[in-house]
């Protein structure tokens, strides 16, 4: 599966790792719902670390859309919430 890290590009991630990524993602989502900024930062860092561990950079010239998209490393909770609820953040 192809996963994009915003601002960094796409990674190819083996299907076997997706379940674990989803668990980390659930923690991230919980933090956003509880508005827990500290837990959000920790969860995002853990998710990104796992992704980089299991993923390989995708072919630069691939036009394949991503199956999952992860916010960038330094994203704030406010930015992520805006990304989820509003298309305003994505230009074009």
């Amino acid at each position, binding site marked *: 599966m192809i996963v994009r890290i915003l601002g960094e590009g796409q990674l190819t991630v083996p299907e076997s790792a997706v379940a674990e990524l989803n668990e980390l993602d659930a923690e991230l989502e919980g933090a956003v719902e509880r508005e827990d900024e500290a837990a959000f930062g920790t969860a995002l860092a853990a998710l990104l670390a796992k992704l980089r561990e299991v993923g390989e950079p995708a072919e*630069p010239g*691939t*036009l394949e859309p991503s199956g*999952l*998209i992860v916010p960038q490393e330094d994203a704030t909770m406010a930015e992520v919430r805006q990304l*989820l609820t509003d*298309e305003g953040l*994505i230009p*074009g």
Partner: protein
Amino acid sequence: MGVMKRVQLVFRAKANKALDRMEDPRETLDYSYQQQLELLQKVRRGVADVATSRKRLELQVNQLQQSADKLTRQAQDSLAAGREDLAREALQRKAGIATQLNDLQVQYVSLQGEEEKLTGAAQRLQAKVDAFRTKKETIKATYTAAEAQTRISEAFTGISEEMGDVGMAIQRAEDKTEQMKARAGAIDELMASGALDDVVGGPRDDIQAELDRMGASTGVDHELEQMKAALSSGAPREIEGAQAGASSAEAAPAQVVDGPQDPE
């Protein structure tokens, strides 16, 4: 549904909306390609803008560093001349500059990071735009409008996702560069007016100012003591070195100045 899937769906929805607006997709391919080239230009301009801001910041850091060095020399000279009051004044000004300097250095590192990110974004977008161009020509040559519709969908969604991502990266970089430009402009004005000496980081309330003064004067007292000690040990120019490591001061008691007649 997790965050990753939800973000992906937002990007996908954006691409689908653009795709739906197309009539003959083969014609729209050229239009999209045009937009991609424009975005590529925009990222490159973004990289150049950030680099310009970074260089300007670098220049300011150097200027401030020179001012700080000069004030240190002046303090040493004043002390050697027996003017502790002047030495204190010089060190106080230096403390103010040091605050600005630390701040600028932090911002410099942040701009460097932004420049790297945008450079990477430009390279990734370039690779996708090249791939899109190849695919576009194949599709135009081979398929009827109806067939092309499905062929195009994937390529278009893929490139649209990249464009959305790069667009956000440019936006973030622009915001940061704007803040930095405003900041750099303010410091340039301060330098030009000579007021920087008296400004220890913008407007503050009286109590904070007093607290800063107390903190700063402790440092100033400390540095004055060090200079006095160095002066009496006969190595007035070795203070910075003596702070970093006592051994180097010992190894090179380069110039023994015997007092106030030292020129400058």
